[in-house]
């Protein structure tokens, strides 16, 4: 089921938590929702899950507006809320059964669904314990299990990997990737490597507005504008090399990284690569090019650029 969000707006008092945002998510796509604290991620997710109402704009799920069919559409959504609230005095199995019943899972299917969730989320050793006795990582798994118990077409996960240990994080990410093949997944996080590892597409919002939308590669390209290359050239004097590099048509700026080792940082002209020119230059001058690596802008830098102002 596709999610289509149009001009969504929500105000808390005078403050606009979500300010006129629009985007689409297609089936089989995992959308990473990024943003600093208070950017409006959780508010948007709460509106999609119909926990809070829409003020302006519209959300369509599978072509139907959430305003007209709120209760019918909730069946197709699995939701893991931000702080993963759970009934601590309930045993895991009872809790999953309760959630399955609330989601109108057919009575005969409930035991097999519970078994499957216990297996997928790795809860087998803990399934008879009360939720309150579980560690944070296991509680998070219970949260994921309840979100997926009715096999929803859409999964909304608000910071799904908080509190998990590195092994569990890898497992949960893999799980999300597997699920994401057939379903529509929106996950919010502020762990940036997580987005790169799990998401097909990244949406960065800041102060209620969308500031970036695309795959991590396109975001990199957009924010970079120009290519930055690190080179190490031997068999020449550093001053000769730097002048020659600066005279290339495709370079914008050249700087020393380490003068003694002849290491340079080359900024290319916008939208042009200077790699070939540098290579040809070295061939012509009989210098030896021992290192050439293009420097990637880190997602962290993109994030900071877009959300600090």
């Amino acid at each position: 089921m596709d999610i289509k969000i149009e001009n969504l707006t929500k105000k808390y008092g005078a403050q606009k938590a979500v300010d006129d945002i629009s985007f689409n998510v297609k089936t089989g796509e995992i959308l990473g929702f990024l943003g600093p604290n208070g950017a409006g991620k959780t508010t948007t997710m709460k509106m999609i899950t119909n926990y809070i109402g829409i003020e302006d704009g519209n959300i369509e799920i599978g072509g139907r507006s959430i305003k007209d069919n709120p209760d019918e559409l909730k069946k197709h959504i699995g939701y893991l809320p931000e702080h993963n609230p759970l009934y601590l005095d309930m045993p895991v199995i009872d809790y999953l059964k309760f959630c399955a019943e609330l989601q109108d899972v057919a009575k005969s299917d409930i035991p097999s669904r519970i078994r499957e969730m216990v297996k997928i989320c790795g809860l087998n050793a803990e399934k008879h314990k009360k939720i309150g006795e579980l560690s944070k990582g296991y509680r998070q798994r219970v949260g994921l299990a309840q979100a997926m118990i009715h096999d929803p077409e859409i999964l909304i996960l608000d910071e799904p990997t908080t509190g998990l240990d590195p092994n569990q994080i890898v497992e949960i990410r893999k799980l999300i990737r597997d699920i994401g093949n057939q379903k529509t997944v929106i996950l919010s996080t502020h762990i940036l490597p997580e987005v790169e590892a799990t998401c097909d597409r990244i949406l960065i919002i800041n102060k209620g507005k969308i500031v970036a939308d695309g795959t991590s590669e396109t975001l990199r390209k957009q924010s970079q504008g120009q290519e930055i290359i690190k080179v190490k050239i031997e068999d020449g004097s550093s001053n000769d090399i730097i002048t020659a590099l600066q005279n290339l048509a495709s370079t914008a700026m050249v700087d020393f990284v380490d003068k003694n080792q002849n290491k340079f940082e080359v900024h290319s002209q916008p939208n042009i690569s200077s790699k070939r020119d540098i290579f040809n230059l070295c061939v012509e001058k009989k210098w030896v090019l021992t290192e050439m690596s293009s420097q990637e802008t880190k997602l962290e830098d993109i994030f900071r650029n877009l959300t600090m102002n």
Partner: protein
Amino acid sequence: MNGIWTIAKKELQSFFDSLIAYIMLVAFLGFSGFFTWLYGSDIFLVGQANLRVFFSIAYWTLFFFIPAITMRLLAEEKKTGTLELLLTKSITDRQLVIGKFLSALVLIGIALAFTLPYYITLSNIGNVDHGAILTGYLGLILMSAAYISIGLYTSSITNNQIVAFLAALFIGLFFHIIFDVLASNFTGTLGAIISSLSLSVHFESITRGVVDSKDLVYFLSIILGGIALSEMTIAKRK
């Protein structure tokens, strides 16, 4: 419909899991049994084969016990954030509120069912007016339902259980006794209006064995009013 029952079942389960139900049952049966059979103006002192004594004891014990049962119904869900979890499942606000209401009503029903031996005992030692006892129980159930819906409402406005408990007692006190006292200080129309607001007046008339549609309308409007207000308070998050 399924949603209501799922919520009610789960809530009833947690009453029993958390011992609230057992404490409530033991205390209620202890109090009412003691004063009905053993102490004060008990059945043997009155010397009549009816349960009027029991009904007037239960009238007070239930008044105090019900807010203690209802205080956590919604306040706790709000505090722990599980309300968000429930309301994003395929269940409406109304189903949730009614489910919670029913769970408390069923618990009270269980407590009252345990007093049926009183009735059986009584019918063995004297000539019992069966109709009056039936309406007496009806009165207790209606009164309980009214206080449950008031308690449910006060539980919906706060996430602090103590506040919910005290607020329910405070509002309940008006219906339970204050309107009655006030009514006796006024004459004419004003007195009649205040008197008609008093729960004790309507309760008395039902336990006397007369089920008047006026009394039924009175109880039903408190019950539905409380449920509707709770639903509106929950919906305010939107």
